[in-house]
């Protein structure tokens, strides 16, 4: 095995030249967009596939990932059966949030109730292309994320399907939280969702996005997506992104936020599902006084492998970023976190913090935390740290001495471990979703412990 081997040829198959032509015909999109897709496709073909010698892929092995086995999804009408698949989760989210958009298998299945948007524009991306081309043309893959980031970003830029646009005009404050649900179900096995959020000066909004598998067969699936956030002066966004794919799904996501002058971003990621995840989550503080809080709740089991690469780029003075990631691992799973705080020369008075804590629940699980700093300014405060540990036996004994049995004690302690990140999330339904997902994964542990196979 050569260590610098290409992990998988980008062997075109469903993403090759011929398929791309079919895909473009099927989309029937305006010329500017077709041109963009073609440029991205050329970039994709010219960009080398990840190699295991690349820093970002050294710990993350995708040799088993066969791109050629998948194909770009074509347009389709959602059926009554699709609605049935979506209903429980959609209705559940509707109970907590004002209104939302749902996609199933890369096609829009439910649209938001525009009467509940308080002046914002919240539509699926295909509709946005038709009705607000100037917005899409201006923001889509031009500023926050660009197709040349790596081969998977280029792939996404050429083949994105589905997707949502949240656009909040100047000064508009959307009080009620919105949601976006992205599902793969039935025979659907490819999702190329794109989430684009633009808040103009002084605008405010909250969006909860959840991606999940809904009764899929035991076959491989692919998500190659992107999230773009652009915040104008003094804008405020609370964005939650929960990834809960099944453990057959390959998850690749390029996510970047540009935070303007005095704007405030709170960005929470939940990484629970997928077979393998490779996520780049980046915030760029490019206006004076901008601030970002980044929260991560990650929990893995089985043979899951989740890799998160975070960046906090301080490009303007007096900017603040505060990142707290917490991970729990069981079975043979693995978490990789590599965080970078970068402070540019002009970004004086930067205050940056990053911390990654992991709770390792099994001898065979492994967490790698690699914090990093690149500082070119001289008047800054940057703090970083990482911890990894087992569930403390003294805590377990203490709880047991009060009548709480071992498994229940561990559950309490694990829940407590995540509490300081939950405490930062003001949306109770989000905390509850994360709590329940973590509890469900812990429960699986008890079952495997009872029936060792």
């Amino acid at each position: 095995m050569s260590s610098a081997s290409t992990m998988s040829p980008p062997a075109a198959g469903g993403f090759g030249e011929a398929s791309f032509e079919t895909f473009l015909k099927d989309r029937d999109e305006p010329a500017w967009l077709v041109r963009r897709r073609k440029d991205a496709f050329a970039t994709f073909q010219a960009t080398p596939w990840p190699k295991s010698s690349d820093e970002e892929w050294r710990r993350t092995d995708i040799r088993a990932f066969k791109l050629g086995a998948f194909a770009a999804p074509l347009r389709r009408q959602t059926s009554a059966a699709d609605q049935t698949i979506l209903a429980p989760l959609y209705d559940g989210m509707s109970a907590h949030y004002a209104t939302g958009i749902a996609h199933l298998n890369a096609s829009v299945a439910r649209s938001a109730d525009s009467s509940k948007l308080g002046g914002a524009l919240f539509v699926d991306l295909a509709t946005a292309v038709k009705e607000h081309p100037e917005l899409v043309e201006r923001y889509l893959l031009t500023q926050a994320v660009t197709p040349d980031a790596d081969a998977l970003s280029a792939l996404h830029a050429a083949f994105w399907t589905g997707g949502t646009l949240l656009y909040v005009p100047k000064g508009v404050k959307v009080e009620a939280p919105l949601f976006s649900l992205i599902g793969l179900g039935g025979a659907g096995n490819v999702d190329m969702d794109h989430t684009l959020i633009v808040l103009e000066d002084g605008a405010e909004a909250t969006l909860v996005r959840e991606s999940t598998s809904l009764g899929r067969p035991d076959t491989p699936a692919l998500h190659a997506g992107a999230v773009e956030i652009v915040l104008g002066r003094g804008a405020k966004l609370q964005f939650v992104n929960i990834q809960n794919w099944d453990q057959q799904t390959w998850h690749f996501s390029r996510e970047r936020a540009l935070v303007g002058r005095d704007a405030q971003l709170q960005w929470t990621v939940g990484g629970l599902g997928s077979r393998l995840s490779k996520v780049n989550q980046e915030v760029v503080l490019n206006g004076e006084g901008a601030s970002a809080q980044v929260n991560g709740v990650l929990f893995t089991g089985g043979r899951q492998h989740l890799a998160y690469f975070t960046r906090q780029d301080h490009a303007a003075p007096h900017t603040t970023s505060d990142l707290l990631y917490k991970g729990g691992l069981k079975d043979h799973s693995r978490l990789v976190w590599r965080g970078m705080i970068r402070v540019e020369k002009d970004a004086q008075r930067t205050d940056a913090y990053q911390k990654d804590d992991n709770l390792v629940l099994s001898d065979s699980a492994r967490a790698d935390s690699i914090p990093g700093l690149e500082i070119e300014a001289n008047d800054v405060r940057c703090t970083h740290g990482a911890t990894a540990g087992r569930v403390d036996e003294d805590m377990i004994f203490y709880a047991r001495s009060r009548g709480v049995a071992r498994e229940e004690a561990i559950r309490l302690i694990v829940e407590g471990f995540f509490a300081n990140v939950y405490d930062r999330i003001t949306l109770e339904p989000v905390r509850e979703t994360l709590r329940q997902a973590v509890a469900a994964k812990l429960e699986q542990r008890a079952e495997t412990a009872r029936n060792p196979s």
Partner: protein
Amino acid sequence: MSSKVLKIDNLHVAIAGKEILKGVNLTIRQGEVHALMGPNGSGKSTLSYALMGHPNYEVSEGSVTLDGREMLELEPDERAKAGLFLAFQYPTSIPGVTVANFLRHAVTNVRNPERKEGEDLISMRDFRKEMRERMDELGMDPEFARRYLNEGFSGGEKKRAEVLQLSMLQPAFAVLDETDSGLDIDAVRIVAEGVNKVAARVSTGVLVITHYKRILDYIKPGFVHILYGGRIVESGGPELVDLLEKEGYDWVREKYPEAARDEDEMEQHAAAGQLAH
């Protein structure tokens, strides 16, 4: 209510292969208050940990029965359900778990020993009401219940939180391991009164481990024992407390030279251990 008996019989306990307790005998009946005194490193905490079943404390010989039922065969949580309680000298903090949530789990399990994990917890309303009353008795701010257990608590707050748990769990037998240390005199009184109230309510048998007389002015022991060199060398009435307060342990050393040798060795060990920390 029938009166239960906690019987410690010839208990030998080792830590990391080193024998600390060398045959402890002690019988406590419900409703009785016993005091256990002894110098630092004499094995008092070792006794309390061994009673509760801490895995690092190896019992090589002896038995501990509660109403005839062997405790040493039970897991720590089963001992708690059987009616044993230990107020720790150094309570552990559990980050992110509130006092109220922790206690609700504890109370649910102790009151429903047959409960399976995942089954309902006791009703939030009833629990809250009861906890408020107990906190009131102990002069605790209701906000305290929402803090994370022992996280950032002062020494005194930790001890109070232990007694709050004691008063909610209402055990048949409670060991208080230096619950008075680190408390000012008012706090000692409040905590002691709290213990007395539970003891009166459910007739708890109490073993008070302490260095000082002052807590024993409030929780009045009928029986006083001196643990020295890993065994109980003297047992008597309250007059023993005054004697130790006045004379220290010199007379104990002289009277029990063999225990004194063991005690010296253990104290050295303890000092070395403290240096290592």
